[in-house]
C-alpha cells in the first residue's frame, strides 16, 4: 500500500518536472513546422547565428530560411508562448481570488473590455493600444465585481452572469466601432477580434513583453498568498493577509496579463479556464505549484494550437476559433460539476 502511494507520488513528481520543461521541445518543434520546413539543427543554428554570430551544427544557412525563421516564425512562436502563459496565469489568479472555478479573463468580460479598448485605440489613435486595453479591462472587472457583489457575498453564478452582461456591452461597443471605422482598417479589425497571431512582428512582442513580465512577476511573487485569498476575506484577515491589498495587486497583475495579450492578439477565449483546471486535476490546487505549471502548460498549449491553426489548411484559421471549440466542452463539464455541488 505504502509502496503504491510512493510510486504514485514519484510518478506525479516526474510528470511535474516534465511539464516544466515541455515548453522547450514545443518551442523548437513549432519553429520547425511551417510552409518552409526546417530541421531542428537549422533552427538552433539560425538562432545562435543571429544572437552570437556562430553555429553549433554547421548548417548551411539560406537567406530565405533565416528570414522565415527569424522575422516571421520566431516572434510568432514567442508571442504565442507569452500569451498562452499570460492567459493561463491570469485565469488561475482570477479563479483563486474570486473563489470561483468558472471565471477567466473571457468569462469575466476582461477580454471583451480589453478588445474594445484596443480596437478603440486602433480606430481612433487616441492613446497607446496597451494602455487603452488595460484601462477598459480594469473597467470591466470593476463593473463585473460591483454588479456581482451583494452584501459582502460574491456568488459563482452572479459573477458569470455579470461577466456575460459586461462582455455583451463591450462586444456591442466593439461592433459600433467597426461601423464607423475606415473600411481599409475594418477587415484587419474583424480578423484581429477572432484572436490570431498572423500579424505578429517583433514590435508586437516588444510592446507586450514588459507589461507581461510585470504581471508574471507580481503573481509569481505572491502566488502562495493566492491560496490564503481563495479562502475568502474573513479567513485571509484572521491569517494576517490583508485581502484588499493583495486582491488589488493580483487583480492589477492578472488584468495586465490578459489585456496585454488581447491588445496584441485579439480575443483568445477559454485558455485561462482550461489550463489551470488541467493542472489542478493533475497536481492539486496549491497555487505555489499551480501558477508556474499553468505558465508552462499554457505556453505549450497555445503554441501547439497555433501551429495547427497555421498549418492545417492552406489558409490561416484564427487560433481563437480553435481554443473556443476546445474550451467550450470543458466549460460545460465544469459548469455541470459546479452546479451539482451547489451554485455557491
Amino acid at each position, binding site marked *: 500500500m505504502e509502496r503504491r502511494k510512493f510510486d504514485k507520488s514519484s510518478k506525479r513528481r516526474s510528470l511535474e518536472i516534465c511539464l516544466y520543461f515541455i515548453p522547450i521541445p514545443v518551442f523548437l518543434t513549432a519553429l520547425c513546422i511551417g510552409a518552409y520546413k526546417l530541421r531542428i539543427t537549422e533552427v538552433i543554428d539560425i538562432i545562435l547565428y543571429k544572437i552570437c554570430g556562430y553555429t553549433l551544427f554547421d548548417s548551411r544557412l539560406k537567406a530565405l530560411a533565416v528570414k522565415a525563421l527569424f522575422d516571421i516564425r520566431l516572434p510568432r512562436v514567442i508571442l504565442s508562448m507569452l500569451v498562452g502563459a499570460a492567459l493561463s496565469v491570469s485565469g488561475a489568479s482570477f479563479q*483563486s481570488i474570486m*473563489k*470561483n*472555478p468558472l471565471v477567466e479573463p473571457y468569462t469575466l468580460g476582461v477580454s471583451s473590455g480589453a478588445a474594445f479598448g484596443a480596437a478603440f485605440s486602433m480606430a481612433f489613435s487616441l492613446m497607446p493600444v496597451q494602455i487603452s486595453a488595460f484601462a477598459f479591462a480594469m473597467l470591466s472587472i470593476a463593473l463585473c465585481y460591483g454588479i456581482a457583489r451583494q452584501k459582502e457575498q460574491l456568488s459563482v453564478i452572479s459573477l458569470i452572469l455579470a461577466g456575460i452582461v459586461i462582455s455583451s456591452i463591450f462586444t456591442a461597443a466593439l461592433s459600433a466601432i467597426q461601423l464607423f471605422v475606415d473600411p481599409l482598417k475594418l477587415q484587419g479589425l474583424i480578423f484581429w477580434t477572432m484572436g490570431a497571431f498572423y500579424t505578429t512582428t517583433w514590435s508586437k512582442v516588444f510592446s507586450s513583453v514588459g507589461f507581461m513580465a510585470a504581471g508574471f512577476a507580481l503573481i509569481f*511573487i*505572491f*502566488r*502562495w*498568498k493566492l*491560496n*490564503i485569498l*481563495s*479562502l475568502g476575506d*474573513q*479567513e485571509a*484577515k*484572521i*491569517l*494576517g*493577509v*490583508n485581502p484588499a491589498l493583495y486582491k488589488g495587486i493580483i487583480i492589477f497583475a492578472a488584468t495586465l496579463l490578459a489585456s496585454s495579450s488581447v491588445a496584441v492578439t485579439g480575443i483568445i477565449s477559454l485558455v485561462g479556464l482550461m489550463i489551470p483546471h488541467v493542472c*489542478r486535476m493533475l497536481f*492539486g*490546487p*496549491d497555487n*505555489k505549484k499551480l501558477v508556474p505549471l499553468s505558465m508552462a502548460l499554457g505556453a505549450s498549449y497555445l503554441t501547439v494550437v497555433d501551429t495547427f491553426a497555421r498549418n492545417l489548411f492552406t489558409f490561416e484559421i484564427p487560433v481563437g476559433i480553435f481554443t473556443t471549440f476546445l474550451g467550450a466542452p470543458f466549460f460545460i463539464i465544469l459548469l455541470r460539476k459546479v452546479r451539482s455541488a451547489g451554485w455557491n
Partner: protein
Amino acid sequence: MELIEYKNVSIRYEKGKPVISNVSFGLEKGSITAFLGPNGSGKTTLMSALNRLVTPFEGEIFVDGISIKDIPLKKLAAKIATVPQFSSPSFGYSVYNMILWGRAPYISYTPKSEDYRIVDETIERLKIERLKDKPFTEISGGEKQLVLIARAMAQKTPIVLMDEPTTYLDIKNQIKILNIVKEINASDGVTFAVTLHDPNHALYIADNVVMVSNGSAVKGKTADMMTEENIRKLYDVKSSFADIGGIRYMAVDYRD
C-alpha cells in the same frame, strides 16, 4: 495586568442599533474563557472585534497593553489565531496545506523548511497523519474542526479564539475537541476565548465565563457565574446543577 482588555467597547453594524454597548472586561493570560449567550446576543461579534473582523465604533481593545488598532494585521495574526465555525474553500486543498496556511503570518513569499517542520509536528501531536493527504473538502465535520484547530496551533500564537467549535459535532467529537483545548491550554499556556452554546462545555473547560445578552457582557469565575439564577436570566430557562464524579453539570427543565 490582563492579556486582553476590552475597554468601554460598543459595536454596531451599518449605523444600526448597537449590538454591544459599553462593555469592559479583561481576559487573564493562560486562562480559558467561555462566551455564553442566546442566539444573536452578540457573543461572536464581541469575539470578532478581537481579531479585527469587526471594528468597535466606541472604546478600544488592548492586547498586551497595545491597542489592536495599532497592531498591523500580520502581527496581530502572530498574536491571535482564530478557529472559525467552518471553512469552505472552493478548491480541494489537502489537509496538510490547510494547516500550512496557519503559517501565513510568518511567510512573506513561500513557506520555509521551519514552516513545514511546525506543520509536521502539529499533525503528529493531534494524531491526524491519516488525514494529511486528503482534500479538506472531503473529510467529516469533526475532522474539519480538528484541522482548523491544527491550523491555529501551527500559527503558534499565545491567544486562540474559537467560534462555537462544538456546534455541528456529534458527542464523541465534542468531547475530543474540548479535551484538546484543555490539553493545549495546560501544556502550552495558550489563552483561549471560546464562544459556546452548551453551558456544560463551559463548566468543563472554562476558568471564566462571559455572559452576553442585550448588548452587555458580565464576566466572572465559572463557579460563580454558572448559577440557576444567571442561567435563567441569560436563556430564560430553568436549570439545576449537580456534581458527578468531580465534574459540575447543568441540567435544564425541558417542560416549557
